[in-house]
């Protein structure tokens, strides 16, 4: 039997101890349905005349599609409709376009070329699943195989094949400027020069399939009033609804999505592919249509947690103090950008892990290669780098001959310490975690390490200050492909310096549309009890000195929480991601290949349904209340 131990002695004054549910067994509200088998998953909705839709998939990693011959398939018994890219009204999307992030780069159905093994090139809708499978086997696709690239670092080389023309450098473009996400804090190169040890290592995490027991699937059917109902196991119902509205060029008010019951997801059911596909099938046939992946598809084309490669370089003093940490990270985003570019921004905010290190630099690349697109999974954006960091801590402990737990306590961040993303750490608890873990594991640590506390010693002097920071301009978009930049690690030759104390510039990925949705920093964390009595007034706007006036919508309290490296000069004020993505890719030395003449679906003008407010996504609707 599992048992939970509550260490109420720790941080006792930070919590009011009136927990009513936590720590007590409870009966799930949905469990009666589960044990009686009556819980209705998407496939437990029976429809008369249900049709079955199956995809024709690419056997190549990378190939041009010369011709698709569906004639024989269309004549097969039971076949109701052959569906190809031509039938998709707006066949180009990026998952995060709903929050104005990234450029549309992914078709629902490939038409000019396939970019990963298993990509959809057509669908068959038939009376039975077997008939759909039989007809799929009769679709003849004439492919011209192209050279492919499967390794993230190979893909960065100047002669690597261009995988996705929307990102012609095989990398996501960060902030309209760099081919990677930068983080600069202090001066790592100077610190490495005076460190007693410099310890470097590389860590690789393979892609991981979420493997829910129920595969991704949806059933769509026409309803009265021209609406379409869609039963789905998506983990992101409104996301899937918005994506479907966009791809099918239909107002979201015509879509009636029913979900909330998934047979496991773990991040693998957010990509909103089965929903638009099933609804498209229902629209084209006027019949209920089921589109679900089989287990093979779930494993092969279901987006996994992407692979990641990390190189970590630490500058360490003899006593174990880490004075510098440098990261070079590569995310395997697959052939399209789904959530990886965003995961990198989140992950970068997490660096250098829960440690107080005065000099940090990081370059993280979101790489396009001919691989299955990656998506979310538990601990999204953090898991691999945390794994790498903790492996590296053990390596450092070995190099300096120290107890690894004591090394962690020595370097742990404490309340008030300045983090590399220029926000002060609060509610830290690594030291206490280490102490408890050491006790449980019977691992003895020194009295001094036992005496440390997250509440003491943090934020003192330099620990709480933003250091003078060395900056560089390396890795501008397109430089690497042109052969002008080789190295992927943070620059050895900084070209600029940002004065100490400079918090940098606020960069918001998308402007807040509604003041109600603004995050109030003061409400985050577990110091609520103390505040509840005091009911503090919201903090007055206090932009740090020397900071450019934050852009219109940036919430005052959020200004110092930039996860973006300071700009090379304080004058550079142009905020990125304030505008919806430009319809054409930003400047890049290699122009994207012009669309093939036969390409019928590239929307000529931006899609215009749903909310039409400048600067906001057109696919969001409704208001949000607290």
């Amino acid at each position, binding site marked *: 039997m599992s048992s939970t131990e509550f260490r109420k002695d720790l941080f006792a004054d930070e919590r009011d101890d009136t927990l009513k549910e936590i720590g007590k067994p409870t009966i799930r509200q949905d469990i009666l349905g589960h044990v*009686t088998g009556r819980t*209705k998953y998407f496939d437990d909705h029976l429809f008369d005349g249900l049709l079955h839709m199956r995809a024709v998939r690419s056997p190549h990693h990378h190939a041009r599609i010369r011709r698709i011959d569906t004639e024989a398939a269309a004549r097969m018994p039971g076949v109701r409709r052959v569906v190809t890219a031509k039938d998709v009204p707006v066949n180009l999307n990026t998952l995060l376009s709903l929050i104005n992030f990234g450029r549309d780069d992914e078709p629902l159905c490939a038409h000019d070329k396939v970019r990963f093994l298993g990509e959809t090139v057509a669908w068959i809708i038939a009376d039975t699943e077997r008939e759909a499978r039989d007809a799929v086997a009769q679709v003849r696709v004439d492919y011209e195989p192209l050279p492919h690239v499967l390794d993230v670092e190979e893909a960065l080389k100047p002669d690597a094949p261009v995988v996705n023309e929307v990102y012609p450098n095989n990398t996501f473009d960060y902030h309209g400027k760099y081919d990677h996400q930068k983080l600069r804090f202090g001066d790592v190169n100077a610190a490495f020069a005076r460190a007693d040890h410099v310890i470097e290592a590389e860590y690789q995490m393979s892609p991981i399939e979420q493997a829910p027991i129920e595969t991704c699937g949806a059933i769509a059917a026409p309803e009265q009033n021209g609406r379409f109902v869609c039963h789905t196991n998506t983990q992101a119902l409104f996301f899937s609804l918005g994506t479907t509205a966009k791809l099918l060029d239909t107002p979201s008010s015509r879509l009636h999505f029913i979900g909330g019951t998934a047979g496991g997801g773990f991040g693998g059911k957010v990509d909103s592919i089965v929903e638009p596909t099933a609804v498209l099938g229902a629209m084209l046939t006027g019949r209920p249509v089921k589109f679900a992946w089989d287990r093979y598809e779930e494993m092969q084309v279901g987006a996994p947690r992407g692979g990641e490669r990390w190189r970590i370089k630490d500058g360490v003093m003899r006593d174990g103090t880490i004075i510098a940490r440098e990261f070079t990270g590569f995310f395997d985003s697959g052939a399209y950008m789904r959530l990886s570019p965003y995961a990198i921004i989140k992950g970068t905010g997490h660096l250098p892990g829960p440690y107080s290190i005065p000099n940090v630099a990081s370059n993280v690349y979101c790489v396009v290669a001919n691989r299955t697109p990656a998506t979310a999974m538990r601990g999204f954006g953090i898991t691999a780098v945390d794994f790498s960091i903790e492996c590296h801590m053990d390596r450092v402990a070995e190099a300096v001959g120290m107890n690894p737990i004591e090394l962690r306590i020595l370097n742990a961040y404490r309340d008030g310490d300045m983090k590399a993303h220029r926000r002060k750490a609060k509610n830290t608890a690594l030291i206490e975690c280490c102490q408890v873990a050491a006790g449980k594991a019977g691992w003895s640590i020194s009295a001094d390490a036992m005496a440390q506390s997250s509440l003491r010693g943090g934020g003192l002097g330099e620990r709480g200050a933003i250091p003078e920071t060395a900056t560089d301009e390396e890795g501008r978009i397109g430089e690497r492909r042109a052969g002008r930049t080789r190295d992927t690690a943070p620059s050895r030759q900084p070209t600029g310096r940002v004065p100490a104390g400079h918090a940098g510039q606020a960069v918001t990925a998308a402007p807040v549309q509604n003041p109600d949705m603004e995050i109030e920093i003061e409400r985050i964390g577990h110091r609520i009890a103390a505040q509840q009595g005091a009911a503090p007034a919201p903090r007055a706007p206090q932009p740090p000195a020397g900071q450019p006036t934050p852009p219109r919508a940036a919430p005052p309290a959020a200004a110092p929480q930039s996860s973006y490296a300071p700009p090379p000069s304080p004058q550079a004020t142009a905020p990125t991601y304030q505008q919806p993505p430009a319809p054409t890719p930003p400047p890049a030395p290699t122009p994207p290949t012009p669309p093939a003449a036969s390409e019928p679906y590239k929307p000529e003008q931006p899609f215009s349904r749903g909310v039409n407010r400048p600067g906001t996504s057109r696919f969001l609707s409704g208001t949000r209340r607290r």
Partner: protein
Amino acid sequence: MARTPLTFTLNDAETGVFVVPGSNLLDVLRRGAGDLTPKQGCAQGTCGSCTVLIDGVPHLSCLTLAETVEGRRIDTTGGLAGGPDLHPLQQAVMEGFAAQCGFCTAGMLMAAKALLDRTPNPTRDEVIEAISGNLCRCTGYEPIVDAILTASARMQGRTA
């Protein structure tokens, strides 16, 4: 399309359906007989969420050719509760947090029932063996094993 008539006993009820030749039993139970309790997780035998009892013995319904169950007795989770009363296994799973998403649960319950029918007082290892063909992605198995042992104890009038 030609269809074959098929009769069997499903949870005590005489059932007759017409099946498309080559259909698997899971499909026939769900779409033909309307018993939606067995689930399809893989259609290849690896997950166990489609487990049903045929003449009291656990089978994977996704790998059972429908025609082979003519005249036989099939039990599913749909017939586990006795009227309004939950089966002790259901009760134990409910109380012991032994299901999260619930997709594996119906199959688990059938595998567990087959075990307890034959071995009323199983050891922990026997429980683990009995559900070794049933995957659960959510719970980490421990609560499920505990729940089966709890149910066994209650059915034998012991306290777990």
